[in-house]
């Protein structure tokens, strides 16, 4: 007992010493509200693993961002809002300049800290989830729903269908099934699909699946009766493989079943087995380990045995690569902000916000990062916190995801109109005066 206590004490002291040594150099602290247990652990382990590995890569290969080491700490949220708020509060004062970027990877936690981040001056990036109308940076200066939002995605999916049919006018009179998770997340699809249906003259058949969605017989009976030309699978968790299997059972062609980005990972297709072959899903990042950025992680991080993933076969999977995208945006935001506020210096949350707002990942930059085709080029402005709103469609060939399209655009004017309308309503309710973007530098 005595020996054990001494060892523990010694370990604690060593830990304290080590942490005080690292804080002497310039550092940039990133708080990670991860979830490695609970119902969504499969996604969490991949996303946070990829994100941490990318930051490790920057530390190992480049010695940090212009010499500033990235430091981070994980806090387990279990995908629970209350725990997420606790983590946010716990992490926000850590590091030499506090937490400089918060990416909750959970819509619920996003909403829970939406107003807190503005008070604490910590920018929040929500990639592919969260509050859609926060894309209006005039009303939400601190929130960045980057790359694409649910509404852009719905519109891009309809555009993909138009491409398949050979023109948007061919969608007239078609029937599109919308098999959605019966929750706030799933209902996010309704308004935009109704608008698109009115614009292009197709019919939307909305079919709800109650959480968790492991029983879908009646829903697929309804689909068999209605015979829609396409079915959009707006699913989550176990609902996805169940839907794919049910589609196979009902004889619905998997090529016409189109998943959203939370329905299109290996975790969704592998459990469905052979039934998943041909299933198509949208994504703002692609799967695959044959990109230079992933190869570099394997070489510099896993080569030194510093990788975060316990299951190394998941490197290059959809969720892992999504984590790498989170990492790229974190690091590039820091890099951009350092250009203005001093290279080699730790940044505050406010400075980081400027960096994110002026982020410009064009083709040349993506090439330098080794991420050409890995994620769409991204340009953020004061008014537009979303960026391209493009997705790529991938098809499951039975063993892996294969990209089958280039980046597909969304209907920008329509989506942007809805975003501005919704953001204006929020601003009115909350008494926020939107920023004048012409005055921002």
């Amino acid at each position, binding site marked *: 007992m005595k020996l054990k206590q001494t060892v523990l004490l010694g370990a604690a002291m060593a830990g304290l010493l080590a942490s005080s040594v690292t804080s002497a150099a310039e550092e940039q602290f990133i708080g990670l509200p991860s979830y490695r*247990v609970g119902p969504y652990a499969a996604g969490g382990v991949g996303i946070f693993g990829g994100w941490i590995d990318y930051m490790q890569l920057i530390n190992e290969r480049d010695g940090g961002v212009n010499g500033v080491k990235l430091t981070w700490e994980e806090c387990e949220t279990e995908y629970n809002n209350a725990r997420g708020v606790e983590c946010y509060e716990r992490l926000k004062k850590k590091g030499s300049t506090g937490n400089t970027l918060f990416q909750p990877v959970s819509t619920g936690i996003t909403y829970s800290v939406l107003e807190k981040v503005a008070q604490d001056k910590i920018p929040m990036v929500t990639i592919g989830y969260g509050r859609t*109308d926060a894309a209006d940076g005039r009303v939400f200066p601190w929130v960045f729903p980057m790359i694409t939002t649910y509404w852009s995605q719905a519109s891009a999916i309809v555009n993909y269908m138009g491409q398949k049919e050979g023109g948007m006018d061919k969608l007239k009179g078609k029937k599109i099934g919308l098999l959605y998770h019966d929750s706030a997340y799933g*209902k996010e699809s309704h308004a935009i699909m109704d608008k698109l249906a009115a614009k292009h003259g197709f019919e939307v058949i909305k079919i709800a699946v109650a959480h968790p969605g492991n029983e879908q017989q009646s829903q697929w009976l309804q689909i068999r009766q209605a015979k829609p030309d396409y079915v959009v699978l707006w699913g989550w968790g176990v609902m996805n493989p169940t839907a794919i299997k049910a589609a196979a059972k009902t004889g619905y062609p998997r090529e016409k079943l189109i998943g959203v980005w939370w329905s299109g990972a290996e975790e969704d297709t592998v459990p469905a087995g052979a039934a998943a072959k041909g299933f198509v899903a949208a994504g703002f990042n692609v799967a695959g380990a044959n990109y230079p950025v992933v190869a570099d992680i394997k070489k510099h991080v896993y080569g030194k045995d510093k990788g975060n993933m316990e299951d190394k076969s998941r490197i290059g999977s959809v969720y892992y690569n999504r984590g790498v995208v989170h990492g790229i945006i974190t690091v590039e935001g820091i890099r951009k902000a350092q250009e203005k506020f001093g290279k080699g210096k730790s940044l505050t949350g406010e400075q980081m916000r400027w960096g994110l707002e002026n982020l410009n990942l064009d083709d040349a930059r993506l090439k330098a990062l080794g991420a050409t085709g890995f994620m769409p080029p991204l340009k953020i402005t004061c008014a537009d916190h979303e960026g391209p709103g493009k997705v790529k469609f991938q098809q499951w060939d039975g063993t892996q995801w294969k990209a089958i399209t280039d980046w597909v655009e969304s209907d920008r004017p329509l989506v942007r109109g809805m975003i501005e309308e919704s953001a204006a309503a929020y601003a009115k309710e909350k008494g926020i005066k939107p920023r004048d973007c012409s005055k921002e530098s």
Partner: protein
Amino acid sequence: MLYREAGQFKASYAEDSQIFPIRQDKIGFWLLMLAFGVAVPLLANEYWLKAILIPVLIFSLAAIGLNILTGYAGQLSLGSAAFMAVGAFAAYNFILRIEGMPFLVAIILAGLTAALVGILFGLPSLRIKGFYLAVATLAAQFFIVWALVKFPWFSNNSSSGVVTAQDVTILGYTFATPEAKYVLTFLIVAFMALLAKNMVRSSTGRAWMAVRDMDVAAQVIGFRLMRTKLLAFAVSSFYCGVAGALYAYTYIGTVEPEGFNLDLSFKILFMIIIGGVGSIMGSFLGAAFIVLLPIFLDNFVPMIFGDSLGAGFVSNFQLIVFGGLIIFFLIVEPHGLARLWQIAKEKLRLWPFPH
């Protein structure tokens, strides 16, 4: 030695029926109130207030609500989170739709709305008991969350179903800082806990306990079962509803139906089981245990093991320890932490000469 009541005589019935008949308890209680009501808001930092103390208070209130129903009236319920959701959404809608609605009135109305819904779902309790009743309240859990998602009116047509709570303003003062929110929560919870304590000591509480111990016998000696049971449902849901409104307004700041899922109901049930079924104090102890232990483990486990084990292992290990500790406490004291406290007090009276 210090904890002796020798020399403290009761000269009237009122003195004899106080909540704390022993002077030391009374002093301890007021010191505790001073500590949490005055010292804590002055000394604690933002993290402690926002992330730890406010949720503990709010969940204590919800646990008191469930304890009234399950611990005192003996009606097992799995719908506490749903009644919290009713309270949260009702408060939101009252403040949104009625111009100039004062916050405290909205909170009370939210509690009353939850009480009405609670009575509705309490009706089956007149015919069914025990686990069968638990299943009936489970229906409340699913139905209410489903209804809040299904009808966009509740969330003011928000596309995502999530609503943001309005500012908390009482008599022109806006409770914006964590300290102010904490004090407000503390006052409401303290007042309602006192009310609950007195309620369970009064004839109402005795009626509940009679029904809990044997409802046929209670009926025979003249308690009206329907009234007693439905009153328990109403009061319990009122407490849960107020807790839900506070959860939205002084804690998270946003309300989404999925936040009030079955998991939360179970959590509240665990709180009263760990804390002590049929004990107001146990509700506080249980809520503190269930809210604080995971946070403590999340800080403590990585401190011991460092990064050597990998974050995935650490996260899973915490759950194992958490579960293990719950089992440990239940084996050591099946009647909950409140009972442990009571035993400690009895021992303390004899200390240091137990023979």
